[in-house]
């Protein structure tokens, strides 16, 4: 068994050398001196010996420095998944054993890396070298000392070159490990200097996954089926707001081998919050009230589920103890939040939206939801100023909720007053009204002080 392993490894290597020799010698005649030189160069011992020398120009890494900044010079590291701590966050430790190692260093020596990636019985020569595999040793040379020297040289491909170093172009940050960031006296103990390197093996796996989801034949077929409304079992995966960051510009190979394979592209997944933009907010047109049944307000999914929950809760006819009141007050507070949110979204629309001819809102609701219109629109301002519209809004909200909770559970006058009172006490609602009042006062003041007014002679 051992003999066959040793022979198998040997013939794998010989095959590799033969293929490389054939490619290089293809255009040469056997009598060409260059041909003879090649034959020499590809002698087993000669080539291995040279490779063991040239391997020093390469480093296999999982974490590289160049993507942080192309001009940075310092340590890159080989920290394979199994060497890292297991924990519940996503990092390189989540990669499987067949992760892709990256290579940094002299691109002219990359054939040595190809050699080390040769696999026999599911194990690469690199893995064998790292394990100091005796079968690999026997395959390399009959002289144990020679074999050992080569294996050590090859295994060193994962070692950082020279001493551990960072660089002014590299990133280093102070991270708090003590209790007090401002404790200047003990700051050396309270902080660690962390130097983040680019997890190139992890990034490669992510890149391959996303690229597969974007460009593979299955993905294309599935997207086509989806576009045409046809059935296909394969799901379509899409990455909203995916961005791409270029690394290494026109020379991605200067960053690393894997970066070169990615064409210098690095995918970035989007983390941004949902947009509050007016784009998403539509004015309530062609309705007389936002509080119809269920109405613009009541149709909001959060409001709907709150009302449903509250209704269910009340229908259980809970005894009116402390707990019941607490829960009901919770629901009330959440509904008030939703109302405040709704009003603010409407306020974020361009002022004057309610003057659109398609707007059929009763004037009280327009006064409430489009306060900005009062600035330019004198008639609107005067009308808004002359009625107690906020009382009307409270009344409408209470009516709406009454209807929303109604049917099985008609509300009596007591509950009705409760809701109205709650809204009257609600801080946001009051604050909006107060802001309004103050603004109106200062506006009136400005207006009376305008030159050319009645008092001006």
């Amino acid at each position, binding site marked *: 068994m051992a003999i066959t392993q040793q022979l198998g490894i040997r013939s794998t290597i010989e095959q590799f050398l033969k293929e490389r020799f054939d490619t290089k010698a293809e255009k040469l005649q056997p009598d060409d001196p260059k041909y003879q030189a090649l034959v020499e160069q590809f002698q087993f011992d000669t080539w291995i010996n040279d490779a063991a020398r040239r391997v020093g120009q390469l480093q296999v890494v999982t974490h590289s420095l160049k993507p942080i900044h192309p001009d940075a010079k310092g340590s890159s590291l080989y920290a394979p998944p199994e060497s890292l701590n297991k924990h519940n966050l996503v*990092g390189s430790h989540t990669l499987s054993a067949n992760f892709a190692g990256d290579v940094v260093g002299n691109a002219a020596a990359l054939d040595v890396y190809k050699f080390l990636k040769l696999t026999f019985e599911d194990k690469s020569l690199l893995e064998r070298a790292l394990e100091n595999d005796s079968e690999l040793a026997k395959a390399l040379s009959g002289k144990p000392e020679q074999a050992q020297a080569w294996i050590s040289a090859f295994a060193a491909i994962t070692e950082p070159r020279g001493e*551990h170093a960072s660089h002014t172009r590299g990133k280093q940050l102070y991270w708090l490990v003590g209790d007090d960031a401002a404790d200047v006296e003990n700051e050396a103990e309270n902080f660690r200097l962390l130097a983040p390197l680019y997890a190139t093996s992890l990034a490669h796996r*992510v890149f391959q996954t996303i690229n597969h989801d974007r460009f593979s034949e299955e993905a294309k077929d599935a997207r086509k089926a989806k576009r045409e409304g046809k059935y296909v079992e394969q799901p379509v995966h899409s990455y909203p707001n995916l*961005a791409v960051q270029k690394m290494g510009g026109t020379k991605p190979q200067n960053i690393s081998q894997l970066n070169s394979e990615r064409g210098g592209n690095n995918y970035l997944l989007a*983390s941004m919050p949902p947009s509050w933009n007016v784009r998403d907010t539509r004015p309530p047109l062609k309705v007389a009230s936002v509080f119809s049944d269920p109405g613009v307000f009541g149709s909001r999914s959060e409001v709907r589920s709150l009302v449903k929950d509250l209704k269910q809760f009340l229908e259980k006819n809970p005894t009116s103890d402390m707990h019941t009141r607490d829960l009901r007050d919770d629901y009330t507070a959440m509904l008030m939040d939703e109302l405040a949110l709704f009003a603010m979204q409407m306020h974020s629309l361009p002022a004057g939206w309610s003057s659109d001819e398609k707007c059929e809102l009763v004037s009280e609701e327009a006064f409430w939801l489009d306060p900005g219109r009062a600035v330019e629109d004198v008639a609107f301002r005067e009308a808004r100023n002359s009625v107690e519209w906020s009382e009307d809004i409270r009344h409408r909200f209470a009516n709406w909720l009454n209807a929303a909770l109604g049917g099985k559970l008609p509300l009596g006058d007591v509950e009705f007053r409760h809701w109205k009172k709650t809204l009257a006490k609600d801080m946001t609602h009051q604050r909006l009204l107060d802001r309004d009042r103050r603004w109106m006062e200062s506006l009136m003041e400005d207006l009376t002080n305008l030159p050319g007014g009645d008092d001006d002679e």
Partner: protein
Amino acid sequence: MSEVKNLLVLPRLRVQNANAISSPMTWGFPAMSAFVGLMHALERKLFSAGINVSLSSIGIICHDFDAQTTEGGYIRGFHLTRNPVDKTGGTAAIVEEGRVHLDITLVFSIETAAAESEHSNMAHQINDIVAGMRIAGGSVVPNRSVPSHQQRPQWVVLDDKEEERAKQFARLKRRWLPGFALTLRDDYLSGHHQTLQQQNPEASLLDAWLDLSRLNHHCSMENEGQPNEKPAWQVQRPYRGWLVPIPVGYGAISDLFNPGEVANARDEKTRFRFVESLYSIGEWVSPHRMKQPEDLLWYVDNDEEADLYRLNNDYHLRATAQ
């Protein structure tokens, strides 16, 4: 995290050109670690300015953002600010930077020995100091989109009585509308990992993370076997809420080096370590859904045994308890 006693609120800061690339794999909003770093830098600045406070956690509410990227198409690219040349006149190596303009409210948990009568004054001083600092690499500029009275810093002493405290928080959080606060959902990440493993035991945490970071459109047959049978495409989401992939700190990829052991370190007295970014899932939550200030606050929560330098947030503790 223990119960917070005092909050310092710096409302509606406009930050121009903050760093939009938050990690090697995410973009769109600065990393939470940038804000925690701001908190530590601020604490040290205040200390040297003779303002003795301790800041232990920070929350962000984002009211508006404007990412400086190319629009249209499937893939976003970044608007680059410069095309530098090197000594030889060739193009110098650059690292692409992404930028974003933000309108945010910062909330700190704050402690001080100073009398309550000084709080308001201190809040204004701190606000002024923050206005001169970099936030996630961006500069604080006057915010013209909101009236000045909505930008006044606030120091809130939270009541010991739960009911009163709840009312205080209710008032606060409505001032933070409209907006979204970033919370942490480690629970969704591990939960989804387990779900995936039920179908495929080989599924990794990375698979779960990617799956939660994308939209999965599935097709099913409606009215199967009937004359009106038709395919229906739907997006399936394992959890409700606006979930996003986020970096949450760093994990060690080397030993911890003693001071001076690593060449070109920023100083010769601090221990040094090579690390990689670590990721989890975050949820953007409208403040009106939050029950208590702790829901939005983030703090340093290292696990040095496991070589983790990470941030934490407790929102999921309450959210899953419901």
